[in-house]
């Protein structure tokens, strides 16, 4: 396994299964836990097999951008620390972290999870800025899927207090007693694939598989079957037919994830 990892894997792939016993189209066990961080306005912890990502959202005040005075900000930041994998060093974010942050920012923007106008308190003067920190605790492959899921769960968990602007003092008054949830419009779910030898597509790759693969592909889908993002950063070529298979797998995955999320939030309601 250590000497000839590719050959080792090929032997399994020929039998249409993987070393950890999964099918080619099977995901690892997904667990999600929301609201665990008390100091954050919204939080979630997602485990995809061994890959663990925790998301904390803090809401702060900020001035809206001058070219869009009635919009707030959602600022994602993915942090891949040396804790999660031997490949990362401490210091400024490396390439993988930056790419992941950019990917999450694109997903938020494209899928319109939140209408940014909802985050505006007073047009041109005050708006909410949501800082989403996604910290990876354990990197065992498929970081993008885990991050997207964690972000979605945390956003559903965020409770923003009511803010009124006092006309006399022109200061904002925060009413911590009255909190409301954010209006989440769509539920984008990411599905990642790894391409082996230009032909085989496996779902939810582990870190080892990601290294051996010749390419990766991530599809982000929302409820109506619309694609928010098709992220294929290079790698071997794919034909249209293969893409079609990926889409259908992504649709089933979306249903699974949605079911899981609904269960979690239903169990949380009576608090």
């Amino acid at each position: 396994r250590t000497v000839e990892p590719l050959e080792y894997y090929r032997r399994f792939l020929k039998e249409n299964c993987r070393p950890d016993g999964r099918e080619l189209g099977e995901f690892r066990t997904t667990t999600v836990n929301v609201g665990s961080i008390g100091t954050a306005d919204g939080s979630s912890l997602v485990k995809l097999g061994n890959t663990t990502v925790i998301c904390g959202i803090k809401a702060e005040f900020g001035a809206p951008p001058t070219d869009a005075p009635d919009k707030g900000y959602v600022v994602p930041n993915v942090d891949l620390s040396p804790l999660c994998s031997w490949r990362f060093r401490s210091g400024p974010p490396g390439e993988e972290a930056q790419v992941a942050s950019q990917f999450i920012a694109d997903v938020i923007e494209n899928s319109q999870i939140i209408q940014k106008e909802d985050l505006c308190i007073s047009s041109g003067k005050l708006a909410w800025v949501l800082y989403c920190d996604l910290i990876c605790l354990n990197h065992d492959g498929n970081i993008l899927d885990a991050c997207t899921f964690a972000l979605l769960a945390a956003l559903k968990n965020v409770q923003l207090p009511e803010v009124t602007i006092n006309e006399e003092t022109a200061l904002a008054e925060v009413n911590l007693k009255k909190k409301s949830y954010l209006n989440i419009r769509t539920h984008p779910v990411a599905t990642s694939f790894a391409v082996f030898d230009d032909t085989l597509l496996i779902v939810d790759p582990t870190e080892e598989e990601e290294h051996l693969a010749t390419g990766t592909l991530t599809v982000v889908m929302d409820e109506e079957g619309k694609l928010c993002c098709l992220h294929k950063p290079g790698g071997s070529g794919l034909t249209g037919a293969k893409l079609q298979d990926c889409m259908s797998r992504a649709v089933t995955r979306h249903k699974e994830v949605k079911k899981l999320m609904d269960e979690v939030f239903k169990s949380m309601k009576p608090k």
Partner: protein
Amino acid sequence: MAFLDFRGGSGRVQIVSKRRATCGRHSWSPRVGACVQRTHLVRKRALLGGSNKPRLHVGSGAMEGAMQTESKIRADSRTEPGPRGPGCSLRHFACEQNLLSRPDGSASFLQGDTSVLAGVYGPAEVKISKEIFNKATLEVILRPKTGLPGVAEKSRERLIRNTCEAVVLGALHPRTSITVVLQVVSDAGSLLACCLNAACMALVDAGVPMRALFCGVTCALDSDGTLMLDPTAKQEKPQRAEHCWEALRDDHHRGCPSGVEYCALEAPVGATWWDHEARAVLTFALDSVERKLLMSTTKGLYSDAELQQCLAAAQTASTHVFRFYRESLQRRYSKS
């Protein structure tokens, strides 16, 4: 600058006016994309023992209608590229190779008004921490036109790097590094596709062994589902709800989730801002052998069927880009 002439597709010889482009190194017709090859003066003199007139070749950017538009070529310089052919077509493109003396290979690729300059250094020495024992280490550096490179550039660098890694035969040069440096000279839409094309031409110019060529094609989807290939900056800009609010603020449209679609129902008086808005912009990188999808990155919402449609359109468009590559390289290396 020498006087240039090119041969039209029908065999007629036409004289075109000179037009200084931004980098001032070549002329090109505003109608038909042209490619100027500049061989090294030394090499050229040795081969032909004489004139070092830059050689021009025809690279047609328009899918169809290139023959028809020849007669309409005007002598005045225009800032806007000529109108596209009927249906979906690409903007005029031009390419120049070997324009920088220090890098091992360089190329400048123009698509309409978007221009990217690429330089390739390699195979060269690599830092021990970065070396891979059995293949070449590929590095891509993308510099934006203004400002410092940020997270978006990093993400694009990763996309370009992975695309190049898929085609470059790194196994032939183990423990070396191949660096591709891209500088954005002007951005008027489809920037990533232009970067990919420039990178490919520069890699060819440097003589890096590759298993296939690759090209970048951008596709924009309108609010009513029409496809636009190679969009300009104006066409790429997604028209979001803000324009919706300004024009129809007092309307019942306020609650519309994707403002653009609802706006299309009502035409505000004198409103041209809602023409050419893109609901989604998709960029693909395709390889030359089987037109397989090497890289894709998208912005906006679209359905599965639309994706397949865009991919098919991109594959047809890529044949033209590859034909342009082939012609330009043929002209460059032929002795005539």
